[in-house]
């Protein structure tokens, strides 16, 4: 694979606005999870981004106003991201910058609110409901292009909880095909009744804060996040320092079941092996694996099997969802940004909230932070529909 670098990046999640706040919370082991109090739903804990309800989008048409785009807008304002995009526009031209982003539910909260206000006579939602600007999946890249002034091709990837990880793969395809010179890659997913109630209906919401890899783990805490990076060819703008390099990826399907992972973990193993192969790396070249680690019984067991099959006990791994909750389609970009932070800061976060590590696990799961150099990180994401994506980032 030709080398691609991440030259700018931004993130908002329950543990902060911008990368520095994420790293501080990881370092000090402060979780962002709180008891759920979302529109009367009180099951489990959530990872809510502070300030999103009061955030006002000041750029772009009002038809795009919704919680998901508000999160995206907040992310645009962090970590110098807008300025970095402006510099890229000046260098490449606006029409050479694409937007490839992942989301699983876009602004569906707006549709939920519209359903509370349907005209009983006509069955019509209120006129204030802008379906294409909010609930529709394509709303996010259209909003971002308006917001940031890019004029290259747009794409929304919606592969459930692997959406924003998979977006890196689709961005790379467009870059390699010469359709653009830089891509805003990432995604956003925001709290809504649908996912909170949906995961509860499947019995997958943890009563307490989620505790990935614990022997007594019993589900996820739903979170929200938005984040974006600027991905471009290495060396194209030598004066711009790179945050990290995209070294490789692996994508696969389980071909097994819609909502249960393959107990033999074959799809996940293929994704990790393909990522290593593409990056031309051996397993022990990876310094840390950021697990998908959702905190459900079956995901974490499956992933442990996959990681131990590929890596044995050689490589430390952990899940950061005890801090942020499972941010669904945004988890890939959130954990990409965390990986960049860990490479810069030189530490690995051990899983939060673990009382007793699952004794059946064979991989090298950390439950406390460790200070050590981190040059290469693998980040995993798996989703409903049996979709898997492993990304490898390395220090630039």
């Amino acid at each position, binding site marked *: 694979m030709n080398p691609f670098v991440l030259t700018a990046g931004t993130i908002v999640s329950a543990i902060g606005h911008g990368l520095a706040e994420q790293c501080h919370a990881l370092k000090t082991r402060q979780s962002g999870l709180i008891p759920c109090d979302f529109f009367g739903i009180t099951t489990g804990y959530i990872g809510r981004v502070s300030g999103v309800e009061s955030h006002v989008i000041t750029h772009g048409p009002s038809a795009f106003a919704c919680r998901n785009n508000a999160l995206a807008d907040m992310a645009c304002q962090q970590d110098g991201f807008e300025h970095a995009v402006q510099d890229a526009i000046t260098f490449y031209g606006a*029409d*050479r910058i694409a937007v490839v982003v992942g989301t*699983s539910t876009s602004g*569906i909260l707006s*549709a*939920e609110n*519209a*359903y509370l206000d*349907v005209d009983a006579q*006509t*069955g*019509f*939602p209120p006129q204030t*409901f802008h*379906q*294409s600007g909010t609930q*529709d*999946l*394509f709303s996010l890249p*259209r909003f971002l*292009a308006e917001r940031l002034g890019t*004029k*290259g*091709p*747009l*794409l929304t*990837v*919606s*592969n*459930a909880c692997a959406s924003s990880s998979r977006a890196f*793969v*689709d961005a*790379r*395809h*467009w870059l390699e*095909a010469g*359709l653009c010179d830089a891509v805003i890659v990432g995604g956003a997913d925001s709290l809504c*009744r*649908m996912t909170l*109630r*949906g*995961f*509860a*209906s*499947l*019995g997958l919401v943890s009563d307490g804060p989620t505790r990935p890899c614990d022997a007594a783990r019993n589900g996820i805490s739903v979170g929200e996040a938005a984040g974006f990076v600027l991905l471009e060819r290495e060396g194209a703008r030598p004066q711009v320092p790179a945050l990290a390099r995209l070294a490789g990826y692996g994508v*696969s*399907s*389980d*071909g097994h*079941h*819609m909502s249960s992972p393959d107990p033999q973990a074959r*799809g996940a193993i*293929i994704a990790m092996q393909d990522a290593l192969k593409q990056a031309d790396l051996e397993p022990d070249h990876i310094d840390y694996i950021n697990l998908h680690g959702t905190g459900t019984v079956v995901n974490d067991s499956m992933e442990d099997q996959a990681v131990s099959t590929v890596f044995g006990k050689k490589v430390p791994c952990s899940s950061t969802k005890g801090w942020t909750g499972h941010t669904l389609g945004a988890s890939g970009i959130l954990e990409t940004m965390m990986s960049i932070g860990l490479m810069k800061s030189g530490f690995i976060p051990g899983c939060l909230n673990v009382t007793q590590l699952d004794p059946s696990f064979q991989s090298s799961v950390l439950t406390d932070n460790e200070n050590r150099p981190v040059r290469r990180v693998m980040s995993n994401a798996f*989703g*409903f*529909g*049996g*979709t*898997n994506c492993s990304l490898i980032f390395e220090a630039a």
Partner: protein
Amino acid sequence: MRVVVQGLSVWGPGLAGWPHAERVLRREDTWQDGPVTPPPAQCLPANERRRSGPLTRLALAAAEEASQQSGLQPSSLRGVFACSNGDGAIVDSILSAITTEGGEVSPTQFHNSVHNAPAGYWTIGHHTHVPAVALGCYDWSFAQGLLKAVAECLVEKTPTVLVVYDLPIPGPIGKARVTENPFGCAFVLQPDTTQDGICVLDITYGATTTQQDEVLHPDLMKLVPTNPAARALPLLEKIASRTEGTVKMASVPGSLSIAVTPC
């Protein structure tokens, strides 16, 4: 970007699979409006077929027909699934449940509500580990899907099936997002241009031009605005004509210029 089309499928009102649709597009058969009844997905076991619903049935019927025509193993094809509305019936049902006092979300409906559900059922049906991506690009799902599928096919040097499909949405959302007819289509794309097939597509993308060719068939012209996936019709008509030519298609932003050369 040059690829060979090795398989095609179309399911829409009065268009029942590629051999039939090709005759209508060539005006050898007259177009007659009628219900869209794609065959059930043979690749799925009966219980999965029941669970999966009409959107997956439409997508898999198109993917299956195009794959069979290509002679390639369905399990070997990378998948690009593009759809604007997702499973509107499920989303409407869940939205009604969560906004009604005492309403319960069905767990099966919830996991089927993910946008990549048809892609997931495709990979389950064919027991394949090959990746499949699910895209949602509103009215431009066909153009963005084609741009993505061709790039993926060439960069990954792997035959790829592009499947584009949408259904009308019931309930209040369907009143805000009107889709009048079901429509689905599929293309099997081969990166090796020395191979035989139906035609070669040579696609160039222009971010700054906005051009859109219309379908020439007077009946089918009326279908195009009734479903995002039906925006494929001008290209399908050109392919069916077995003549050389170029089709312009609006993308976001810009447009695709698709040069079609019969094999």
